[in-house]
């Protein structure tokens, strides 16, 4: 049976499931049907877990019938394929883990299951989350549902595209330098990178451990609040997780932004900023001011050093984290019969890693190597402190910051692949939040002349996700940018 239940937002679906208006199995089937229709063109998913989805939906129906009110009971979700799922292959977008089936679940997966979520698939990504366009996946790029010739952004591009194409109600992504926010911006979805320490990374394949965070990609701020409430919290298996209590993020969505001081950092509005992006972001600010917020001009003077700092620190950490992929205990092994151990390592890693992963491993090894450590790694660590201090200073005069998420809208597939540095600069507005550890959120705030979505970025104080969600939700009460549907879906329906 074909139905359009997959069009329901997470919150709407949850309410309809609770009062028995719709069935979890029908909702799951609707998503699976949508996946079948759009996946040949969008390619957001590396694995579709149809049987598991049906089993979990049946279980959710039983729990609902018993009167349970699990926060995500029966809600179809997609997980970035960087998150370990017991019994479901987890590739990290890499040949080196192409056939790896984890023997355990990530902490966030356990929490989602507990809450009753229904897994429909694992999403495509830049290999080991290294990229801004999804073109670094070993399994081919995901296409942007708004324009199939464009990238969905990266590295959580598969998760964002799946949400935009209504293949699921919500997805998890990860954000090390903008990998949730940039894809959300490019696909017209809502993406939240929580504070460093808010969500456990147990079971997440590590890229840059001092920067990585897991967060939701959804169609609205209210949906993101529902998911964050489930996945946030302390986990003894990730010692960086905070013991702070997890607030009720949905209760924070009051629509009230009166008196909220919104900082506008001048460094995020350079002269060369795309005019459509500037216009849309300024419009969003005007709407919030109309609701009673107060704009404040602020400065983050070390912003121009953030990308350079990131591209020393993140590769340095990656070069260490990815040492584990050596062909010994799991994943790919490539060896000739007469290879010694070193030759086996080298051959395995040459065959298993793609170009961008090799580039970052070499860059990071360089930054940490004898003779260069002080000039590169140490200098970058100290610059990171300055970037963080910028935010501490700014938050003395405002409650959150408002800026564009990306300097442009989605670019064409292939447009930036020849020049790694041009690709790195895609993250110019998102990287500083990771360096400082603060939460950041992207919500749609308009479209450019090519009808591609524009993202508004909100950055908050440490552990103040509630203010970001409340502000984004207030904006969404007055606008319908987040309700627009990619033209692809209309085409798909008429077939």
């Amino acid at each position, binding site marked *: 049976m074909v139905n359009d239940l997959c069009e329901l937002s997470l919150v709407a679906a949850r309410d309809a499931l609770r009062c028995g208006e719709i069935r979890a199995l029908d909702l799951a089937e609707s998503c699976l049907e949508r996946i079948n229709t759009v996946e040949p063109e969008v390619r957001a998913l590396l694995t579709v877990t149809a049987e598991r989805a049906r089993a979990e939906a049946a279980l959710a129906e039983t729990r609902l019938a018993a009167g349970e009110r699990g926060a995500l009971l029966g809600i179809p979700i997609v997980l970035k394929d960087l998150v370990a799922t017991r019994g479901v292959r987890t590739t990290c977008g890499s040949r080196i883990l192409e056939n790896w089936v984890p023997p355990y679940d990530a902490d966030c997966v356990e929490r989602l299951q507990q809450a009753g979520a229904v897994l429909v698939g694992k999403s495509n990504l830049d290999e080991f989350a290294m990229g801004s366009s999804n073109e670094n996946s070993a399994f081919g790029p995901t296409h942007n549902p708004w324009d199939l010739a464009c990238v969905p952004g990266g590295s959580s591009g598969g998760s964002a595209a799946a949400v935009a194409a209504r293949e699921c109600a919500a997805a998890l992504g990860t954000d090390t330098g903008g990998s949730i926010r940039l894809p959300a911006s490019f696909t017209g979805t809502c993406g939240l990178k929580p504070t460093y320490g808010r969500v456990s990374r147990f079971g997440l394949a590590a890229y840059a451990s001092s920067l990585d965070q897991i967060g939701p990609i959804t169609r609205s701020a209210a949906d993101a609040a529902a998911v964050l409430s489930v996945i946030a919290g302390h986990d003894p298996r990730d010692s960086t997780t905070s013991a702070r209590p997890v607030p009720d993020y949905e209760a924070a969505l009051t629509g009230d932004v009166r008196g909220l001081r919104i900082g506008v950092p001048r460094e995020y509005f350079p002269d060369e900023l795309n005019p459509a992006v500037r216009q849309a972001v300024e419009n969003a600010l005007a709407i919030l001011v109309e609701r009673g917020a107060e704009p404040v001009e602020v400065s983050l003077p070390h912003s121009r050093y953030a990308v350079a700092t990131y591209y020393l620190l993140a590769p340095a950490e990656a070069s260490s984290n990815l040492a584990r992929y050596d062909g010994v205990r799991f994943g790919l092994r490539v060896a000739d019969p007469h290879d010694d151990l070193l030759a086996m390592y080298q051959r395995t890693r040459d065959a298993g890693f793609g*170009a961008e992963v090799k580039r970052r491993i070499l860059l990071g090894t360089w930054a940490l190597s004898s003779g260069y450590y002080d000039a590169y790694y140490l200098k970058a660590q100290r610059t990171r402190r300055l970037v963080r201090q910028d935010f501490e200073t700014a938050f003395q005069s405002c409650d959150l910051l408002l800026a564009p998420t990306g300097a442009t809208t989605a670019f064409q597939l292939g447009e930036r692949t020849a020049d790694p540095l041009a690709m790195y600069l895609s993250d110019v507005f998102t990287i500083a939040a990771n360096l400082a550890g603060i939460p950041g959120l992207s919500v749609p705030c308009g479209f450019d002349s090519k009808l591609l979505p524009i993202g508004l970025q909100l950055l908050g104080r440490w552990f103040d996700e509630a203010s970001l969600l409340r502000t984004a939700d207030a904006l969404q009460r007055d606008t319908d940018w987040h309700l627009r549907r990619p033209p692809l879906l209309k085409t798909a329906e008429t077939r």
Partner: protein
Amino acid sequence: MAVTLEDVDHVARLARLGLADEERHALRADLESILGYVDLLRELEIPGEGPGVEGLPEDGCRERLDEVRQSQAADLVLPAAPTVDLEGRFFRVPKVLD
């Protein structure tokens, strides 16, 4: 900053990364371009000492109790290994010592 092919070979060896010849040339040019960009940091004079501890959560890392607990059992982990010994008890690797 000038990067030579020998530099590339050196860090590739440190990183246990085998590289095809054309990759070496491409990566040399990429590294030179990226390191040229990050040289931007040189213009910053940073007073004070030490790197500072960044990348820690706002309220520090948690310590947990030092308890004996069950870890991944070998029979769960070994099936994912590329090669194990005949009885399936150990990871098998090429000869390490002559």
